[in-house]
């Protein structure tokens, strides 16, 4: 298994161990309590009952014998005495033998039980002797027998009876003590167990919390590191490497991620190189294409001027077409050349848009006065942009806004800006011919045109320029338009360029 797997298993394992430990401890405590209870019910309680029975029997026996000897109540007491010495006492003596078996051999109670049993046996023998002396009522009349039995009763049986009673009292005390000891032991056991529970719980919980915290950190930290790297790559910084120490899944993920960003970087570099090559190619191609075009143009001019008189009307039309086509070709090639140049200047500068538009107005003054156009410029911000391209963007959009006006209606162009959270939103609106709904998507493509050269001359490259410039500025360009009513071009420029 891998490291994070171990860590997680350890974390969960800790809680499982706590649960198991507590179950086991609980079971042990219950067993202990049951054992104590068992000892109380099967050993101590019967023993105490037995001892009490013996004591009662002993006292009763003494009183009965005393009755028999002193009060001469032979008939009423003899049967009961007989029952006690023949049935009860032997039964008790045999039970005391069993009671001894439940005790340890070293237990001092053994001796006392022996004593009690011994005196009980002696009592039986003694009473048998008394019984044999006092068999009939005649015997009561014999003063010798009376003296003997009275002597046996007062000097012997009373001693035996007292010894038995004392022995039992001692044994009862001992059993009571044992009972108290057991109860105290159980309560101590329970107390120490509950303390152990509390301590282990606290310990394990503390340990579990530490492991959980460490595990969470071990998982969250590398994820954050990866997250940061992903963000960094998102911003185009492919150099950023994730550094995750160790040999768990995350560091493997980190390594894989680094490899990925490495290969992304190399792909990106390749694309960049190819792109540059392509731009270079377009630049050279369009530049070199200009040369033969210029030759065609020049010689068509010469042909037109020098041979005007020698050529007929048809020839003049042909020459006109050649001249128009080569002129248009030259514009297209120039457009391509410009397109490939966009983005060449990679320096961002702060530009005050209002100042820039004032300068632009001067540049477009001929167009503005020819078309009798009005330019209404609102309050515009100061922005960090690619200066030359940004200017070209506005030049193209204003140029279009003026160019595509409705015949006979002087164009009015309005330029406004509004600040949004991450970008500035510019609007360039006109009162021109507008764009049909189904043709809105077409206009931003390279060489795309909606009108014939006769209606509106152009190469169809201006808005493609604008799109490329907008992309450089991390923005978007959209158009809202109503055919025959005018168009509004919305552009956004990111605030975060500088």
């Amino acid at each position, binding site marked *: 298994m891998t490291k994070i797997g171990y860590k997680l298993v350890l974390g969960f394992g800790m809680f499982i161990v706590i649960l198991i430990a507590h179950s086991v401890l609980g079971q042990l405590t219950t067993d202990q309590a049951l054992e104590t209870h068992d000892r109380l019910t099967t050993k101590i309680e019967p023993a105490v009952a037995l001892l009490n029975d013996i004591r009662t029997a002993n006292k009763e026996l003494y009183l009965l014998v005393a009755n028999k000897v002193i009060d001469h109540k032979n008939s009423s007491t003899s049967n009961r005495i007989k029952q006690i010495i023949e049935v009860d006492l032997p039964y008790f003596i045999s039970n005391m033998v069993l009671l001894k078996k439940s005790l340890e051999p070293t237990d001092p109670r053994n001796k006392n039980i022996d004593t009690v049993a011994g005196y009980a046996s002696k009592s039986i023998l003694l009473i048998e002797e008394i019984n044999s002396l006092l068999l009939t009522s005649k015997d009561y009349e014999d003063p010798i027998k009376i003296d003997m039995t009275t002597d046996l009763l007062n000097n012997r049986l009373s001693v035996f009876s007292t010894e038995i009673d004392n022995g039992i009292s001692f044994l009862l005390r001992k059993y009571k003590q044992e009972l108290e000891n057991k109860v105290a032991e159980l309560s101590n056991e329970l107390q120490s167990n509950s303390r152990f529970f509390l301590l282990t719980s606290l310990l394990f919980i503390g340990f579990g919390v530490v492991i959980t915290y460490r595990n969470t950190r071990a998982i969250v930290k590398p994820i954050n590191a990866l997250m940061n790297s992903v963000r960094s790559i998102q911003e185009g910084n492919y150099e950023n490497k994730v550094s995750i120490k160790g040999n768990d899944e995350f560091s493997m993920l980190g390594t894989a991620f680094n490899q990925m960003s490495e290969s992304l970087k190399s792909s990106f570099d390749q694309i960049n190189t190819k792109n540059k090559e392509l731009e270079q190619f377009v630049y050279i191609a369009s530049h070199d294409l200009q040369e033969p075009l210029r030759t065609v143009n020049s010689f068509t001019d010469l042909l037109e001027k020098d041979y005007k008189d020698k050529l007929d009307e048809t020839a003049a*039309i042909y020459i006109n*077409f050649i001249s128009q086509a080569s002129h248009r070709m030259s514009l297209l090639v120039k457009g391509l050349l410009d397109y490939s140049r966009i983005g060449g200047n990679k320096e961002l500068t702060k530009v005050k848009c209002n100042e820039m538009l004032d300068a632009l107005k001067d540049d477009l003054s001929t167009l503005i006065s020819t078309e009798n156009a009005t330019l209404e410029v609102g309050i515009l911000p100061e922005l960090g942009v690619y200066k030359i391209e940004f200017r070209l963007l506005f030049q193209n959009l204003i140029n279009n806004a003026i160019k595509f006006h409705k015949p006979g209606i002087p164009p009015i162009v309005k330029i406004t800006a509004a600040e949004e959270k991450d970008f500035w939103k510019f609007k360039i609106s006109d009162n021109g011919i507008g764009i049909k709904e189904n*043709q809105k998507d077409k206009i931003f493509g390279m060489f*795309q*045109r*909606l009108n*014939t*050269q006769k209606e509106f001359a152009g190469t169809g490259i201006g808005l493609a320029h604008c799109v490329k410039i907008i992309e450089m500025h991390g923005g978007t360009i959209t158009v809202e338009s109503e055919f025959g009513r005018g168009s509004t071009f919305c552009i956004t420029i990111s605030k975060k360029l500088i």
Partner: protein
Amino acid sequence: MLIDDCEATNYYNQIIINRLDCANSIVMAQGGEKALEYLKNTSSDGNSIPDLIFLDINMPGMNGWEFLEEYEKLSNIKQAKVVLLMLTTSLNPDDQDKASKLGNVKGFVNKPLETEKLQELLVAYF
């Protein structure tokens, strides 16, 4: 009928057609919209219905495909006998597909139109 946004192309094609002297009259339309307008008004303006249309595909505004969509909606009497597509480059497979679905397109001609090519077309379609 010649439909092309480039005036020079229409003019050139007209010269080639005139050389063969195979047309009673030639109508030139600069773009799909103009051509459609002409065809719609064939009865009211007394415009004659063309026998053959040469249609450019790549035109500003309404291009060749869009023209064909509108053209399909015209009543039969206002449609020409033959419509041929004029190509600057060979068709890509998607466009080939598109063209084969349009019943009105009879064939393709590569630019520029030449007298020999025109002669072959006349033999093939008339």
